[in-house]
């Protein structure tokens, strides 16, 4: 058993879990082209969820602040992107690939910029007065979520909004019997890019060093004379911006968004953060990929179970590792 453990940990430890899942699903599904489609869909979904979850996880790890209003950034990002895309409709559907991409980039940038600005406001007005008081934090951010959802309803109305996709990302790559949607590849690549960027910043720069040190022991870093609270605003803004970016990507992925989006994503993001362990980017990525894969595999294998699958996954992980798979902070 011990040798088995050591072999597993040398091969990557808990990072093997998604691979094991993929192999198991391959056996159960038995059809390679279906399996590839589902796996790509799962990875793309996982990457978008990762965008939304990473900020929440870091904010919690650094400042012990859990933001129940996090999903408001996701839904605002989605709706802003949808509005920008609708306004640039002629660019989007036109034949020029460059204009297509520019329109999409503008939508994503608008959502991200809004996320950063809203994050600054949120941190300053909503979260700052209630540091170190979990109960009031949960209550206040919950109140902010209510207000944000109502604002969303007031501005965009309750009806579903359809989201235009750029023409160049429509359709799929076809290899033999395997078809892969281009948008999913794009979502996966964008998520990967963000992960690599976050990884480099956290592990390669001085600010990243301070953030990681702050996650591990805030008082110690403060005692050394660094202003963690200033750093924290930056992390909070970055996290909110990433959430809004994830929302924008999600809007294009779904094609049709409703104001209920935020609430649905909030639960998924929480599950991801719990599975991954609070405070770590690697954990969030791992959790997000697992949730994405499980959601797609189970939806194919046992459609009835699909909606509860994430919950069951979370319970299984918590029974095995009460603090998540890769926590940066202990409970």
């Amino acid at each position, binding site marked *: 058993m011990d040798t088995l453990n050591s072999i597993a940990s040398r091969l990557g430890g808990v990072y093997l879990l998604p691979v094991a899942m993929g192999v198991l699903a391959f056996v159960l599904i038995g059809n390679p082209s279906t399996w590839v489609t589902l796996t790509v869909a799962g990875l793309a979904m996982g990457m978008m969820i990762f965008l939304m979850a990473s900020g929440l996880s870091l904010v*919690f790890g650094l400042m012990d602040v*859990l933001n*129940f209003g996090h999903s408001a950034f996701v839904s605002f990002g989605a709706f802003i992107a949808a509005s920008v895309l609708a306004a640039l409709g002629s660019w989007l559907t036109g034949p020029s690939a460059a204009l297509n991409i520019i329109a999409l980039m503008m939508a994503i940038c608008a959502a991200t910029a809004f996320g950063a600005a809203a994050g600054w406001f949120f941190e300053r007005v*909503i979260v700052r*007065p*209630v540091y170190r*008081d*979990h*109960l*009031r934090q*949960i*209550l*206040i951010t*919950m*109140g*902010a979520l*209510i*207000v944000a959802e*109502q*604002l969303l*309803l*007031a*501005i965009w109305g309750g009806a579903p909004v359809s989201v235009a996709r750029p023409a160049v990302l429509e359709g799929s790559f076809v290899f033999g019997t395997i078809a892969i949607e281009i948008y999913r590849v794009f979502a996966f690549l964008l998520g990967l890019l963000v992960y690599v960027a976050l990884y480099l910043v956290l592990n390669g720069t001085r600010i990243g060093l301070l953030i990681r040190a702050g996650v591990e022991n805030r008082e110690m870093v403060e005692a050394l004379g660094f202003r963690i609270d200033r750093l924290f605003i930056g992390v909070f803004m970055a996290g909110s911006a990433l959430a809004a970016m994830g929302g924008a990507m999600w809007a294009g992925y779904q094609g049709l968004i409703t104001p209920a989006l935020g*609430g649905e994503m*909030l*639960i998924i993001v*929480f*599950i991801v*953060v*719990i599975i991954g362990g609070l405070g770590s980017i690697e954990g969030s990525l791992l959790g997000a990929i697992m949730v994405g894969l499980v959601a797609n595999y189970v939806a194919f294998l046992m459609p*009835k179970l699909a*909606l*509860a699958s*994430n*919950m069951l996954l*979370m*319970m299984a992980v*918590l*029974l095995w590792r*009460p*603090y998540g798979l890769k926590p940066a902070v202990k*409970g």
Partner: protein
Amino acid sequence: MSSQTASATQASGMTRARAGRMIVYGIVGLIGLALLFAPFLFPEVRSQEVAARICVFIVLVASYDLLLGYTGIVSFAHTMFFGLGAYGAAIALKTMGRGFDAILLGGAAGVAAALVLAILIGLLSLRVKAIFFAMITLAAASVMLVLASQLSDFTGGEDGMTYQIPRFFSPANKLLTDADGKAVRVFGVALDGKIALYYFVFLSCLALFLVMARIVASPLGTVLEAVRENELRAEAIGYRVVVYRTAIFCIAAVIAALAGIVRAVWLKYTGPEVALSFAIMIDILLMVVIGGMGTLIGAIIGVVIMSLAQFYLKDLMQVAADATSGIPLLPELLNPDRWLLWLGVLFILLVYFFPAGIAGTLLGKGGAK
């Protein structure tokens, strides 16, 4: 000198607290009387509906306050337990027909399910931080909501289900008949099954509320407050914190399930909208915080204020929306459907400035924590 001023401020604080207590108990007494005589004071159907809803929600909100205010547990699964009770009674009434045995059996099944789930969730996750617990209960509640709408063979899905309740509660049942065989009228209100139904709701809720008041006053209640104030210290003195937390979580779950049964019997309808939805959870949260966390009496005040606001704030906002109809966006914000927006703002302000809520502030617990 300074000690004199200190004692003077203390004394004035004492009188203010006493005055506040008078106000709170006066208001609660009035509300209690109004609910007691509601069928005679407000005979219209709509007011009856509001009164019954207030009764049930007082129990629901007070039981939530046992968790949030007294023990410092943040749970988002409270509507789940409420819904289990309601669905238990509803499914039994639907399949076994109208009878008290159906209510008893279905209700017992619902309460048992709530208890088992509460024990599971409690033991699994009450060891971890408050924040983990909040997230886990949120996820559990969302799964329950999905299950209720997916298992439509049992639960009626999104549409919910209507059913009949025991004949004793139907308007055709006359409690007291006069010489002509008609129901006796008191203050112009016929003493029929509808009155019986209202008093069934009222008395059940009163009994549950008194049980909770007893729990809070018992040694258990004191231990819970100790856990809330300083978990480590409570553990060090020798109280098993996890056991106490799980116990109060189970008690609150059972009471919520019982309230759900009462609600199902009163409404003759059960569906996700009235028994399980996240909107109800938000209502409960707002009611507890507005009324005052850590005071059962606050639950009464919070429920009444929120319920009246739901009915009258909308009218007020309609007026405001009409008055500002020329200005962009503002009428949208003042649209009566957006009343939750303004309550949300009020909620945030209350948590900032009066964390003890209305009752807590008046009772002199303000600023605590």
